[in-house]
């Protein structure tokens, strides 16, 4: 069965950045917590979300096989049969898919035998065409294959097929419109986020007229296209699967902000800044950046940035982005019991603090506030606030009056 075979393909991520012994025991503890959450009936999805976000993410591909479906609220008891191969010739996107999959060699682990890789590439084509065929409203984009290959390598063909289909109708929905207008709209969140945290970097980038296309491949491939270490990619996928669909753009902003000095030292013109930013350093402190992205999401939730994002370009922006996101939330909303439970766990002072740091114009305080939030709440509580905001828009009002 392809599922078993594939488990060994993807690399498992160790907990990065912590001492070995300490790391081992933390890792064991986390694994125990994850299996407890998985074993609960129904599975404790809120806890799984926290695990996916907090340090080290979901730890191994075995665990991902079990948890990723839960993060997408899916039952995987009955997997569909292998998609029919006769989809190929007559699909309008077949040639583009073929072209992109053929030259996706770098997405496969170095050292994988050619015939194994070629088999996986065939599966990759099948999955993509299967999802497109069943969902004629979805349109293939270059980069979609970079997302699908990650699921294939972690989950195997059959599980990947169902998860990718769900993801495509939810998190990736906007990228798969007939046009990229909604994608562009999402990119328009980038500069407002940067501005809130570091106006100097923002102004510099505006002056250089660098635009946001340097972050396009980050966004629409969830960084799968630009990170060469597969462990980093799956770690980010843990995070993004557990979060709001706009989280990747917050993460993109955090990467730019992380490189503020380099940016400000750069020549202030489009080419130089684009060139600098489009090359992601491969040794980023992922765990730190993930928790920062979560912080920024809490402090500057999409609802607060929406107007500025819309003003980024004079063009009329499509409102369907937000309809889709609401839809996504509605369909995946954890049941109300879970929601209530999570709300109770947020300590009152944390709520108060969240309120304080959320003042939109307190720019200079922002960096301090970011630290405060992370330290005081910890990643778990952060996740609670995060998901509360994300999946239950009404809570938004209570936390951020």
């Amino acid at each position: 069965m392809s599922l078993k075979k594939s488990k060994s393909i993807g690399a498992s991520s160790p907990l990065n950045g912590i001492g070995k012994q300490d790391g081992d025991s933390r890792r064991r503890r986390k694994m125990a917590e994850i299996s407890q959450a998985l074993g609960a009936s129904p599975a404790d999805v809120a806890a799984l979300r926290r695990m996916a976000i907090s340090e080290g993410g979901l730890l191994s591909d075995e665990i991902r096989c079990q948890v990723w479906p839960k993060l997408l609220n899916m039952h995987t008891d009955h997997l569909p049969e292998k998609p029919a191969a006769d989809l190929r010739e007559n699909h309008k996107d077949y040639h583009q898919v073929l072209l992109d999959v053929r030259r996706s060699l770098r997405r496969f682990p170095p050292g994988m035998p050619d015939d194994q890789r070629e088999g996986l590439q065939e599966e990759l084509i099948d999955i993509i065409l299967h999802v497109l065929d069943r969902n004629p409203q979805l349109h293939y984009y270059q980069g979609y294959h970079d997302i699908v290959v990650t699921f294939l390598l972690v989950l195997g063909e059959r599980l990947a097929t169902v998860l990718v289909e769900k993801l495509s109708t939810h998190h990736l929905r906007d990228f798969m419109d007939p046009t990229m207008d909604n994608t562009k709209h999402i990119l328009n969140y980038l500069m407002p986020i940067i501005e809130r945290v570091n106006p100097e970097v923002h102004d510099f980038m505006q002056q250089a007229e660098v635009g946001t296309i340097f972050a396009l491949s980050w966004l629409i491939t969830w960084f799968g296209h630009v990170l060469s270490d597969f462990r980093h990619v799956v770690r980010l996928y843990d995070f993004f699967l557990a979060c709001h669909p706009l989280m990747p753009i917050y993460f993109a902003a955090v990467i730019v902000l992380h490189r503020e000095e380099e940016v400000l030292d750069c020549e202030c013109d489009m080419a130089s800044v684009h060139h600098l930013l489009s090359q992601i350093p491969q040794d980023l402190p992922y765990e730190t950046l993930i928790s920062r992205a979560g912080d920024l999401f809490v402090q500057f939730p999409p609802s607060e940035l929406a107007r500025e994002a819309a003003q980024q370009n004079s063009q009329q922006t499509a409102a369907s982005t937000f309809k889709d996101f609401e839809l996504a939330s509605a369909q995946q909303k954890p049941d109300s019991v879970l929601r209530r439970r999570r709300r109770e766990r947020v300590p009152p002072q944390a709520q108060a603090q969240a309120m304080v740091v959320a003042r939109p114009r307190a720019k200079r305080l922002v960096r301090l506030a970011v630290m405060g939030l992370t330290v005081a709440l910890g990643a778990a509580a952060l996740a609670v606030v995060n998901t509360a905001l994300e999946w239950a828009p009404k809570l938004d009002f209570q936390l951020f009056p």
Partner: protein
Amino acid sequence: MESSLELTTSLPGTYPPLRSRIFKIIVIGDSGVGKTCLTYRFCAGKFPDKTEATIGVDFREKVIEIDGEKIKVQLWDTAGQERFRKSMVQHYYRNVHAVVFVYDVTNAASFRSLPAWIEECRQHSLGQEVPRILVGNKCDLRHALQVSTELAQKFADSHSMPLFETSAKNPDDNDHVEAIFMTVAHKLKSQKPLVLSQPPGATGALPLRKSEEEERSWSCSC
């Protein structure tokens, strides 16, 4: 580790003076015709061993020297898929000095798309006054040829562009891609008659006949 397709090369041991001139060239054409390989070949001097789909716009640059002047040649390598063009790529058409249209000599459809690419340029107000060249790539795959030189030359003539047939891959012919971009750079620098520096013995790399009209547009009257 950096993505192997992104790089900047400069002449060894030199650094461009602060105000060195910049030539900005945009490379367009259907997906898969070899735009990424061509730009990589020019900037890195070799055929990349693993290319990937270009998402959005990639940037490569190389510092060259013409008549003692150091010039930065910036190549903007664009995504071929239609959906990226409408809302994404516009930004990169600004202040472009030259346009390189690419088709694949083994793919007639990529040749038939050329009028649409020319139209896209026109819509971004890049008309005949901006130097444009046509490149037929993958000449190493002779057995699979679908677009004859004659047909391509006719098309190039009718649009007053010089035509180059080349291969980003063909190892016998290392310098030809370089020569093509250098041609554009020379044109931009001087607007003087082009010295097409053909590598000796480059047979497949043809100095193709230029139409009269094109001759006029690419040379001065002296």
